[in-house]
């Protein structure tokens, strides 16, 4: 244990809640920290929104988040006098995947993805059904692969209850949908599963498959899945640690932790834990659980933000 006021440490422990996407990182760091310092850390992942609700009620020390805090949540925290520090800790990339047998397609634009998966694509049974729509959208979103092959389009992807679904809609679909006056959702007629195994199996199973999963799962199953390059307006980029890390791969999001400043001051264990989280050891967990490490510049920025907060 560090320094002086170790008396309250053992009693209080550290409470973390929030995004289930970030939970694996925090959870692994909690383990490591526990092994090292003997401090108990409790982590769970009901979801970002739930996490903030608890965080702003002062129930948790740290909140995991897969998106920045929203205005309503900010107001809530303010009302309760909760002062916090936002720390970026990792990047989560989403891979658009198809079967390795599908050699006709190698790169898709956001417009293509909207045409294949967006709300207007419902009923498209073959890839080529999306041609017209993709064409219409083609101009606005870069390099398009169409015409698509005439093979069955079999979509397997996370369901609406999942954070990965939300991220996909947020990054890929939302803008185009809003521009077209559509609801920001995907098509409904696909096999949705909360179980990533099943998605991988579904994508592997059909030559015309299409789906999206967390970036990490592709690296683990690279011989069964083909990750498509994505064109976000600046040319086709294949997802990799490097392209996701430096942000050139367009479908990625930042993952955050929010630290309650007062708790960090009162309970040295909380501060110690955040120190550890941002240390090289702690950030190594990001890759261990399958996310992408922040670029060095961002790491430095995060560390600085934390140092400033501690100093205050």
């Amino acid at each position: 244990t560090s320094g002086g006021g170790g008396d309250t440490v053992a009693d209080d422990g550290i409470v973390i809640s929030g995004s289930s996407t970030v939970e694996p990182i925090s959870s692994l760091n909690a383990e490591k920290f526990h092994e090292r310092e003997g401090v108990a850390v409790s982590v769970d992942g009901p979801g970002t929104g739930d996490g903030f609700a608890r965080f702003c009620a002062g129930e948790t020390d740290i909140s995991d988040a897969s998106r920045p805090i929203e205005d309503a949540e900010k107001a809530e925290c303010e009302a309760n006098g909760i002062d916090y520090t936002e720390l970026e800790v990792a990047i989560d990339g989403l891979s658009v995947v198809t079967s390795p047998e599908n050699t006709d397609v190698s790169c898709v634009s956001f417009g293509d993805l909207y045409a294949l998966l967006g709300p207007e694509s419902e009923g498209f049974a073959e890839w080529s059904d999306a041609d017209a729509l993709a064409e219409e959208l083609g101009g606005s979103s870069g390099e398009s692969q169409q015409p698509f092959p005439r093979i069955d389009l079999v979509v397997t992807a996370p369901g609406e209850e999942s954070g990965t679904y939300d991220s996909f809609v947020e990054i890929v679909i939302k803008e185009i949908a809003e521009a077209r006056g559509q609801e920001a959702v995907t098509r409904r007629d696909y096999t949705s599963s909360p179980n990533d195994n099943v998605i991988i199996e579904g994508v592997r199973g059909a030559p015309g498959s299409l789906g999206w999963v967390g970036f990490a799962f592709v690296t683990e199953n690279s011989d069964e899945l083909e990750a498509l390059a994505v064109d976000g307006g600046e040319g086709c980029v294949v997802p990799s640690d490097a392209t996701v890390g430096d942000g050139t791969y367009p479908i990625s999001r930042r993952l955050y932790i929010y630290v309650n400043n007062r708790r960090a001051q009162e309970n040295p264990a909380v501060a110690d834990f955040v120190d550890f989280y941002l240390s090289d050891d702690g950030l190594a967990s990001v890759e261990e659980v399958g996310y992408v490490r922040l670029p060095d510049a961002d790491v430095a920025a995060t560390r600085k933000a934390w140092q400033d907060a501690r100093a205050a």
Partner: protein
Amino acid sequence: MATTSSPLKPTDLRIGRRRSHVERVVRFVLLAAAAFTVLISTLIVAVLFTEAAQFLLRVDLSSLWADGWYPRRGDFDILTLLIGTLLVTAIAMLIAAPLGLGAALYLSEYASPRARRTLKPILEILAGIPSVVLGYFALTLITPQVVQRMWPDANPLNIAAAGIGVGILIVPIVASISEDALAAVPAPLRDASIGLGARKISTTVRVVVPAAVSGIVASFIIAFSRALGETMVVAIAMGASGGALRTWDITQNGQTMTAAMISLVTGSDNVKGDTEAFQSLFFLGLVLFLLTFALNVLGERFVRRVRHRY
């Protein structure tokens, strides 16, 4: 001993104050416990009805007849879930009814007392297997080894595997209630048939089964109701994903009421905030409650018929 001299008064025939006091207190405490059971059902009904009513007031009623169950998009097509539930339950019954009844017939009519003593507990163990375990079994063994062999294109999450898993779960229910009903058929009926020169199979098929028929039907109804309410097997084997379209294809992914409820509360980000979607949970709960309640009342009635007959 005889007290002829001083005649008794009624109050002489009373027990001590302490004993009668204890009696009253105990009675009250036990009554309170029994009343508690009534309270629970009242609470269930009250909670379900009020929240479901709010849901129905708030939601656009036409969304109850959309063509899919996507609570987060405001599509609450209950028919999608009813079809999914029906398919799972029907497959489960197709498996459990013959298997359970066959096992019950064997145990009650053919097995030696010793065989029965060893085999019945094993069936009871099957009844004690938690549904998460059967869900795992359905997902990891039944889907690849059974369903995908019959239909190579079957989705890894499919209605058939969930149905088979639920079917295995309810086999012991059918077996044990049917066995009770068969065992309740009075021996004299069997004797009568045998005394007329009937063979075992004739006695079993023409006398014992017809005599036990209401118990057998009851076992089917109760198992059916249990299958309707089964959650985890379906949630695992069929996926408790956010939504589903109407489908009758058992090789594909579908959605039951129970799995839909689980997916409503297991969402990761930003899910529980959406009140309408969340309240649909209570609406589903109410529909499920009413369905199983009706079935159980029906099943009880059949069971009682057996009891009354003999």
